[in-house]
């Protein structure tokens, strides 16, 4: 009995302590950042170097995605060499892009001053910008616009205003096994032919794996297939997707599954699931984002050293390869209490030096154009040259105010058509109707 009492008291104590710790933490950060804001009087755009560090001060809370390579920490260290008086509180939000978004939105919608700077998925910029949650960076970004690759730069804009600095870009790519395939397939027919030749044997269980989990993966992958086949999404202010190109793409995906080239489970897979299959040596081809390159070649991967990468193949009706444009930017909270320090930090993180660390350490695709010609980078990442074409041809998802409402409609109807719950005609007709209705509400 006595033991129980003691135990319960300890538990209560722990509970109380965690509560206190929680309160204490937020108190501490807010007071010190106010302190910082009061001190930030220096205007930016001064020339700082390691010999002449800036005396700008303040506290910047920076939220990034999970990074296991340590690149982000190294970038922050470099920043602190230039701005020794700015404290960067680096916080990591784990999980998928959708999970990170929801955590961030809670703070932003509430008008919190933290986080000051955060990694912002390119598809959030329009939504967050329209809501007035992001600092307007138009003048600053215009000044350095020519440094960046055009495609990713355009994702920082919404309604002709810039709301973010480019971070790294991303695109859907075709990964292939160099030990089995000499030249990657250029179109769907070749993909099917090669898959039939190798898949199902010991070398690789499946031909082609991709991601169609009901969520953003479905939208990204299916729009890719459609555009490879000459189709479109939002065109001239309206969705008209009920056509042969879209139907051909749906048919192609269904055939991949029914012929056993792709497992039925692709409709429930996320990028990490796909990567695991490829790493285990069970697939000949994989569609994935750029992050998969380093991980496919990691020590834990069975196919390390045998991974090639190429633009995605083009479809029967289409002429060019098409991958969905993804990637991340750095955005600044409109309510930040350390604006000067935050701008300096975001600007640095987007700079040539910082991006170089990111490229070398975590294998991201730079948005700074000069890095594609940097000898050191090309020597370390020769594949960057191979996929420059894919990066240049990457197609953005519909750039509308509320993309997530559009994406939910895509996901449901693509799934219904692929699972045969609706015929292609029914699904696409209803999808177009709902998409245009949703679009009209956003005008």
């Amino acid at each position, binding site marked *: 009995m006595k033991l129980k009492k003691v135990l319960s008291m300890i538990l209560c104590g722990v509970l109380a302590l965690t509560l206190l710790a929680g309160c204490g933490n937020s108190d501490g950060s807010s007071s010190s950042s106010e302190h910082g804001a009061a001190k930030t009087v220096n205007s930016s755009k001064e020339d700082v170097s390691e010999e002449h560090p800036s005396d700008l001060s303040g506290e910047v809370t920076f939220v990034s995605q999970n990074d296991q390579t340590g690149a982000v920490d190294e970038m922050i260290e470099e920043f602190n060499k230039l701005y020794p008086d700015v404290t960067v509180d680096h916080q990591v939000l784990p999980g998928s892009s*959708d999970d990170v978004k*929801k955590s961030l*939105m809670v703070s932003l*919608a509430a008008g919190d001053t933290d986080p000051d700077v955060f990694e912002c998925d390119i598809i959030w910029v329009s*939504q*967050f910008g*329209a*809501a*007035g949650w992001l600092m307007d960076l138009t003048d600053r970004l215009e000044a350095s616009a020519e440094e960046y690759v055009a495609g990713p730069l355009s994702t920082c804009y919404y309604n002709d205003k810039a709301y973010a600095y480019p971070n790294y870009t991303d695109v859907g790519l075709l990964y292939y096994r160099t030990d089995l395939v000499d030249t990657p397939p250029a179109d769907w027919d070749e993909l099917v032919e090669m898959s039939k030749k190798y898949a199902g044997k010991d070398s690789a269980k499946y031909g082609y794996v991709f991601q169609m*989990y*009901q*969520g953003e993966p479905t939208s990204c992958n299916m729009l890719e297939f459609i555009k490879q086949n000459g189709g479109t999404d939002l065109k001239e202010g309206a969705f008209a997707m009920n056509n042969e190109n879209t139907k051909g793409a749906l048919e192609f995906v269904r055939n991949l599954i029914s012929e056993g080239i792709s*497992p*039925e*489970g*692709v*409709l*429930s897979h996320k990028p990490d*699931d796909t990567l*695991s*299959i490829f790493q285990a040596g*069970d697939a000949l081809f994989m569609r994935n984002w750029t992050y998969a390159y380093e991980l496919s070649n990691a020590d834990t991967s069975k196919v390390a050293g045998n991974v090639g990468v190429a633009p995605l193949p083009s479809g029967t009706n289409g002429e060019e390869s098409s991958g969905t444009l993804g990637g991340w930017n750095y955005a600044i909270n409109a309510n930040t209490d350390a604006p000067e320090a935050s701008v300096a930090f975001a600007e640095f993180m987007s700079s040539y030096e910082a991006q170089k660390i990111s490229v070398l350490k975590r294998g991201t695709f730079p948005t700074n154009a000069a890095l594609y010609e940097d000898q050191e980078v090309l020597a370390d990442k020769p594949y960057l040259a191979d996929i420059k074409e894919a990066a240049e041809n990457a197609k953005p998802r519909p750039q509308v*105010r*509320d993309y*997530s*409402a559009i994406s*939910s409609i895509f*996901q*449901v109807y693509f*799934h*219904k058509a*692929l*699972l045969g*719950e609706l015929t292609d005609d029914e699904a696409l007709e209803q999808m177009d109707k709902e998409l245009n209705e949703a679009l009209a509400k*956003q005008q």
Partner: protein
Amino acid sequence: MKKFNSLKKSVRDNIVGYTMILPALLLLVIIGIVPIIITVSYSFQYKVLTDPLNTHFVGLENYVSLLSSKQFWEALWNTVVFAALSMGIELVVGFTGALLMNSAKKFVGVIRTAVLIPWAIPGIIIAYMFSFMFNDQLGVVNQLLQIMHFINYPVSWLTNGPAAMLAVVLADTWKQFPYISLMIFAGLQTIPKDVYEAAQIDGAGRVATFWRITLPNLKQILLIVLLFRTMGAIRIFDIIFGITGGGPANATATLLFQAYKYLFGDMNFGLGSALSTIITILILICSFVYIKVLKTDD
């Protein structure tokens, strides 16, 4: 003070009494009632957080667009299927667990603790555990079935509507049966032993004892369990979120999951609040029916 003392004693007691419960009452109003009123008021507005300057009153428009959308009826159907399946299975498993706990002679503590473990794990963790287990390529379920030669090829559980529903129901069962077991076990303990002894003397068999004595005595407890589980099933979210994300093709998208998508995906607080209000009304109706139907005579 003098004035207060001059009041009648009953009035004085009342004032003292109300003053005493005032803090608790205030707390209840602030954290319970006010948010509900705010939610209901949002449901009559166009309120999209990403379009903050355009908030305005729209009357019943949110409700009309919900009730005329296919997604709503789909989600309602999914919720009903989920609730019926999960409660049926959970009740059977839970009852079995309770009888097991009740009849255990040895290792009583171990058995009770073992039964309670799933309940102590947060729902979202259970969801991710089950999503790994049911993964077509990497999951343990397919591996076990293949080892036992029930299947030759990996089954793709989560891309087939009914199978995906079964997966989420199983995950929910695993999480919730301890609660039911515990409640029923508590009820079993309150049934006097002499009733069973009398039945034994009268020559009643095990089955008759169960139907005539155990079940009637548990009526109250079962009512409470059913009520709580119905509410829980209508509000199911974490399991769905972690395992299927509403897929495939919305086959497991329940009402609350749909509300979550409106609220936190589209930031549409008007539509999301309208759906939340409908969910609340549904729960109220269910509670009312249960209490009416299962009302005891005494």
